[in-house]
């Protein structure tokens, strides 16, 4: 008699007993367990810098502001201002996407990112109100308090609720995924400028690959971006949070759905890598304040 003939398909216990008795079932279970164990035990990938360029001086500190943009593209090691990983197709795509076929248009695009910073007045005002309120209260304001402050300043209550919920939900997602040890509970979004500033540094390095400038000029531009951008932030984590939330808010127009964070907030893993010392993350070793 065939062994499967002993299984009574109407009796779940009989089916389970039969499965337990099969060697190939244990092989499948073993492979699955081993797979998850390996993933769990395996250390996360380390951040690899370029050996041709420094990783611990002022220049490295300045270019590290573009870490998330450079790594997310990816256009090469984070400390390489020449964006060596860009293929001919990547370059063509970048020129089209950013509208930078000439040196002048490239410089104008960087200037726009540094000055205009993808800002929307309503968002800037609401975030400033949050910062002012936090300073007054000595803690991160609750959603209700923040909404009340917006309404008091003349904002629309329903729109305010939508914006506050969007910011707080993205903020919470970043904190959960990157870790509370990096994005500490007292850290909150005060500006979304981080995204545009990170992009400005990335675009500067891509300009070198496109032949619009040489390395010394790119370094000078990156220094200027740092000088103008850094004072608004208190730490690398503050900047990283602003970058990710800014990216999500920009591309979603502030309308956060179930899949929005998966779509636009994917930079969280690079943020975690950049801020983790064990993974050789530059943000963990380089000081936020330069000189």
């Amino acid at each position, binding site marked *: 008699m065939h062994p499967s003939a002993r299984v009574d398909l109407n009796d779940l216990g009989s089916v389970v007993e039969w499965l337990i008795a099969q060697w190939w079932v244990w092989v499948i279970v073993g492979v699955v367990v081993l797979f998850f164990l390996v993933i769990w035990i395996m250390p996360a990938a380390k951040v690899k810098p370029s050996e041709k360029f420094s990783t611990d001086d002022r220049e490295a500190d300045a270019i590290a502001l573009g870490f998330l943009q450079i790594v997310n593209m990816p256009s090469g090691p984070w400390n390489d201002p020449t964006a060596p990983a860009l293929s001919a197709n990547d370059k063509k795509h970048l020129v089209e996407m950013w509208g930078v076929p000439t040196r002048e248009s490239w410089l104008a695009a960087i200037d726009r990112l540094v000055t205009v910073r993808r800002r929307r*007045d309503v968002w800037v005002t609401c975030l400033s109100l949050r910062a002012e309120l936090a300073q007054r209260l000595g803690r991160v304001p609750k959603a209700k308090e923040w909404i009340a402050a917006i309404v008091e300043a*003349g904002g629309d209550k329903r729109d305010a609720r939508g914006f506050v919920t969007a910011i707080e939900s993205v903020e919470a997602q970043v904190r959960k995924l990157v870790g509370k040890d990096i994005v500490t509970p007292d850290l909150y979004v005060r500006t979304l400028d981080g995204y545009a500033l990170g992009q400005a540094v990335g675009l500067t390095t891509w300009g070198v690959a496109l032949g619009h400038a040489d390395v010394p000029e790119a370094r000078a531009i990156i220094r200027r971006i740092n000088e103008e951008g850094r004072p608004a932030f208190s730490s690398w984590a503050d900047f990283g949070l602003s970058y990710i939330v800014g990216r999500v808010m920009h591309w979603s127009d502030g309308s956060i759905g179930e899949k929005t964070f998966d779509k636009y907030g994917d930079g969280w893993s690079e943020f975690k890598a950049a801020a983790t010392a064990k993974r050789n993350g530059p943000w963990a070793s380089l000081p936020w304040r330069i000189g």
Partner: protein
Amino acid sequence: MSAATPSAPRPDAEPLRIELAPLRSTPGIGTLLGYERAAGIPLHRRFFTVLAGVLLLTAAIVVALWWLGRIGMLERVPLLAGFGVFYGLLGAAGFLWYAVALSRRAKLALFAWTNGWAYADLLQDTRRPGAAFTRMRRSMERGVVASDDPRIPFELGIVHSVGSRDEGATLQRPFGFVELPLPVKVPHIVLRNRRRSIVPTLGLRGARMDLEGHFATTFQVLVPEGYQRDALYIFTPDLMARVLDLGAAGELELVEDRAYLYLPARTRFDAPDVMRGIIELAEELHRRLAARTAAYRDETAVPIAHGEGVTIGLGGQRLGGQGVSLLAVAATSAGVILSAGITAFALFGGNLLRSFGG
């Protein structure tokens, strides 16, 4: 709001000359192909690729009908021939529609390049601050002409709301637009066309004002509460008289440091007379709006931390709400009524029919 009277911008020494000749000639096949290359149109959307696709479809339909006829299927189900002819005609009509639109955009591109302006065949997610743009999840702009001439800096094109793989398109009729920069930021003001509104204003909060004379019969002004005086300061009678020239065709919106002239999607930017009229109107609106807004200050705005460039108080930056499209309301209502009707008929239809039959 500042009480200072702004001075009109100094007229430029050289008058503006617009070359309309490219809009008067019909582009040949060589011009079309050149345009496709210059505008960077991808291969799958080029003239000969689409033509080959349509011819292949026609050939496939002919072969299928011939084969169906041979096996005697057409005699038994003659409706199949109808389907074949229908899809063939649909393909031909689609190609004609595509070719006409391509030819129009080629004319527009030649016009832009001749005048030293920039041109883009397609732009996506430009994130312009206008209310009609911000409510769309994804937008696609076709035939965009952009001038950075300081005498008439503008961008114009036709906008479509499109869906993505993950989400459907926002219900919004396509529309034409002309974007004009303003020297300073101003409160959000929408001049809603009473007869044919393009910007969905249903559900937008704020004050609704009826201005004087003929203006009130054509336009209604929407402005954030507390900014009514500011609207009157900007829209002086002479400016309103010029806006009236838009007549039943368009609407106007001021938001941040931009003015938007909205026009119906059927606006033929490639027609010389239409383009001349739009450029003249845009030039005059730009000049008058610049003169009127240059000295504008929102005195209720308070300085805020990290708020460089924010010069309008929070209440005046945007009209509250998103604005609902009448098309969406009509479509939803029709859907609800239809499904209610079907349900009612399914439940009581038999009795109803019997009652008619006596």
